[in-house]
């Protein structure tokens, strides 16, 4: 099938309004939200914007007969290159499938199409007393389908869990164009938990066309506290102490001094400019419990050197305190033209040591690193600040990244807490997983997609799914011996 025939056939399925193939129109689909340089851009042959499951299935069947790769895409806010069509082919953008089909308060569920925007779902359900708990920073733009693909997190995951804990069933278009509903073993449904397999599979197993999501009741009371500390160490110790006391805050976030310098002058959240670090602590539940717990949290913070503490229960004040955290990335432009955002996770008890190591890496590489992150669950977000135009900056950032990832993995952490592996971190997978581990994952891939056409070049180190094991073995050995300092060896 030549390109003209393909375009015509796609047009017949999705209509002219749902088809993009002009090179200029395709430019925006060459990227996602990840940093240029860490992820290669690539252009698809065509982009389709279907409106129904049948259209998605039709496009997938056409791609199968043409032997083309298929890449599903939501809002394109991903941070690991997951929505970039590395091998070309067809991008299926699901943003026009944006209907909330049903809301059921007794079941605490909503049935939604994949293009529904995360925040819009929460806004829609709040009137009925519910919200959708996963709240990634991109929640104003990112879609539920994308959240499923990446198993997205956000600040409130500490108490409420990540996306996989909130997805009950999925309608999925499989690589052969058939459509199934997956169910969850958590609901007592028989059969392998294909919902668990799908969530976080980065679009490599199937395309979500409907999701039955769990809704969480808006708690009767919410309190947000800001605790400022002279040093980061004190703040990190307070984090550990709060958890050790048996308190599970709804969110527990840390903002370091460098971030405060960027965010406070722009958004006036009320973070002291001279603080070494600020903790944002959100407690929710029954009023009696919230009051008691808030008091304990203040006490713990003061014991660990907190010199300024403020609590807010009114919505407006709470939102202002949160604003500094939520706008941190947007404010980074005040400090440097570019940043590279990491997403490693470490055990909470290793937080202090890890922050020390981050500071050391920053000094050694001469790259400022800002820390604004989900402290409660150990999910770091070091922002490496640089200037792409300055000679040597990119290399130093990549080198520093390598040291950071190596350290976090070495102390029992994870490569990525919520951003995904994509193409960005696939080269690092062998730091964490053995050949046998990856072979088991590849088995799952082949069970869904034996022709390996859904979102190729993601998650697995190059060539691995189709069995270039020997190359992988050598690569693993090389990485373990730290013989390579090239961040993207493949």
């Amino acid at each position, binding site marked *: 099938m030549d390109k003209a025939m393909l375009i015509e056939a796609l047009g017949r399925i999705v209509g002219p309004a749902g088809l993009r193939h002009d090179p200029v129109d395709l430019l925006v689909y060459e990227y996602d939200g990840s940093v240029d340089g860490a992820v290669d851009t690539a252009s698809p042959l065509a982009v389709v914007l279907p409106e129904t499951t049948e259209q998605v299935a039709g496009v997938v069947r056409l791609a199968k007969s043409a032997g083309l790769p298929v890449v599903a895409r939501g809002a394109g806010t991903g941070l690991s290159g997951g929505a970039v069509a590395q091998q070309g082919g067809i991008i299926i953008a699901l943003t026009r499938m944006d209907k909330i089909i049903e809301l059921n308060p007794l079941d605490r569920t909503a049935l939604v199409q994949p293009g529904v925007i995360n925040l819009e779902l929460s806004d829609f359900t709040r009137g009925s007393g519910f919200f959708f708990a996963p709240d990634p920073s991109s929640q104003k733009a990112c879609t539920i389908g994308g959240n499923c693909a990446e198993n997205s997190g956000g600040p409130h995951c500490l108490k409420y869990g990540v996306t996989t804990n909130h997805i009950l069933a999925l309608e999925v278009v499989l690589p052969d164009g058939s459509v199934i509903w997956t169910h969850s073993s958590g609901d007592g449904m028989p*059969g392998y938990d294909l919902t668990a397999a799908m969530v976080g599979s980065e679009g490599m197993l199937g395309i979500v066309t409907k999701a039955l999501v769990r809704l969480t009741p808006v708690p009767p009371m919410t309190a947000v506290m800001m605790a400022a500390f002279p040093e980061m160490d004190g703040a990190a110790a307070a984090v550990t102490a709060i958890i050790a006391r048996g308190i599970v805050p709804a969110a527990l976030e840390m903002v370091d001094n460098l971030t405060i310098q960027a965010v406070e002058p722009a958004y006036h959240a009320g973070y002291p400019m001279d603080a070494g670090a600020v903790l944002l602590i959100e407690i929710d539940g029954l009023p009696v419990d919230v009051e008691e717990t808030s008091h304990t949290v203040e006490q713990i913070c003061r014991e660990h050197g907190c010199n300024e503490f403020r609590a807010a229960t009114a919505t407006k004040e709470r939102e202002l305190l949160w604003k500094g955290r939520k706008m941190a990335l947007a404010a980074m432009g005040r400090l440097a033209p570019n940043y590279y955002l990491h997403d490693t996770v470490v055990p909470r008890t290793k937080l202090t040591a890890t922050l020390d190591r981050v500071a050391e890496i920053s000094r050694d590489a001469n790259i400022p690193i800002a820390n604004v992150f989900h402290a409660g669950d150990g999910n770091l977000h070091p922002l490496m600040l640089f200037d792409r135009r300055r000679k040597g900056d990119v290399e130093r950032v990549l080198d520093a990244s390598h040291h950071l990832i190596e350290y976090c993995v070495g102390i029992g952490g*994870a490569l990525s807490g919520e951003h995904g592996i994509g193409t960005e971190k696939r080269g690092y*997978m062998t730091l964490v997983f053995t050949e046998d581990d990856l072979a088991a994952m590849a088995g799952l891939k082949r069970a869904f997609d034996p022709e390996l056409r859904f979102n190729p070049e993601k998650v697995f180190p190059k060539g691995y799914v189709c069995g270039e094991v020997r190359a992988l073995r050598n690569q693993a050995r090389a990485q373990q011996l730290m013989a390579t300092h090239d961040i993207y060896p493949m």
Partner: protein
Amino acid sequence: MIRQRTATLTELLIDGIQPRHQLRVESVEQLADLLAGVIAGGGAVVPVGGGTALGLGNVPKEVQASVSLTGLDRVLDYEPSDMMLSVEAGMTMTAIQETLGEHGQYLALDVAFPEKATIGGVIATAFAGPRRLTDGTLRDQLVGATFVRSDGAICKAGGKVVKNVSGFDLARALHGSLGTLAIIASVNLKVLPASKEDATLVAHAEDTDQALGLCRQLLLTATRPTALDISITDDGAEVAARFTGGLAGVEHLCDENRAGMEAAGLVGIQTLSGAESAQWWQSALDERAAERPDIVQIHATMRPSAVEGYLARLRPALVELAPNTRLTVSPGVAAVHVAAPMRAGASQFWLASLRQAVAAGAESAVIACAPASVKHDLDVWGEMPPDGLEIMRALKREMDPREVLNTGRYVGFI
């Protein structure tokens, strides 16, 4: 590897079939060696934990070996401040809760016979008691696993931190897989601070409708109970609501809900607190889940909003088919547990008819326990194959190409 010939294990039967070999392992390496040595196509290799749910699954054709995992009973890593516990699969739930309890923490799950049930078995069977209403299942707490494939390869997925999107989530995919993909050797679990207070309200309702009406009210509040069950027998309906959390909060919820129960017309309201509350739920769960030759258990699921209509259809159907059946309804998670006394001379046809009645209007109806003589040839997991069965078969081929792990016992006789 230890070949058991002791009195305790000689009676082990898998649906009436005696394994040709009864084996026990004490390390993951032993497990790997054992699996590497089993015979492809030589019959099922059945992993066994505490043996509390051996009745779940289709009747296997042959069993070449049972593998007891109770020798894998060590804590591998526990750092209370990380709220993360790493344990071997054969550790019992009681041992786990005791370990955690010393540090004021617990694993959010209630199971039947916790002193016997192993964590690996609970994951494989996806068992979850009434606390599932607020705590979810182990699917929610499971953040990583080490498992052994039938070729002896030792693999891991996930990790030891709660937030982790590095690679496919194979650990969660093992939840409810009945050991048919791989044998779980160890798991990493998210744990929580233990509740300070535990209280239960138990009350009698005039009839099922009254009980369901009250539950509906309770379920529509933001402060749902931790667990909520209705036990329905021919004598009436009993509602139990459990509240856990901080001292002041639990007291407040108990007062509020007691008043709600009175207003709804329920009678004989009792308040149980502390150990008494916990004991009440444990006894109820043990009684319900006990595998007995004279009781058939079927587990039906649906959406909560479908429960009322479902029960209205099911109850008349049971009058003739299975008198004296006890129904335990968890309206919040929409699970209905059917415990039907075996009829004298009951046949496979009877069980199939009973399951058909239980399945009507439900999303699934799994025969959790029935004598092999009546369930033989039935797919206990459901009359109709689930969506995605072809993917499931393909996954089985990929993970267990030699087709030995609990072969024949799973959905669609996988």
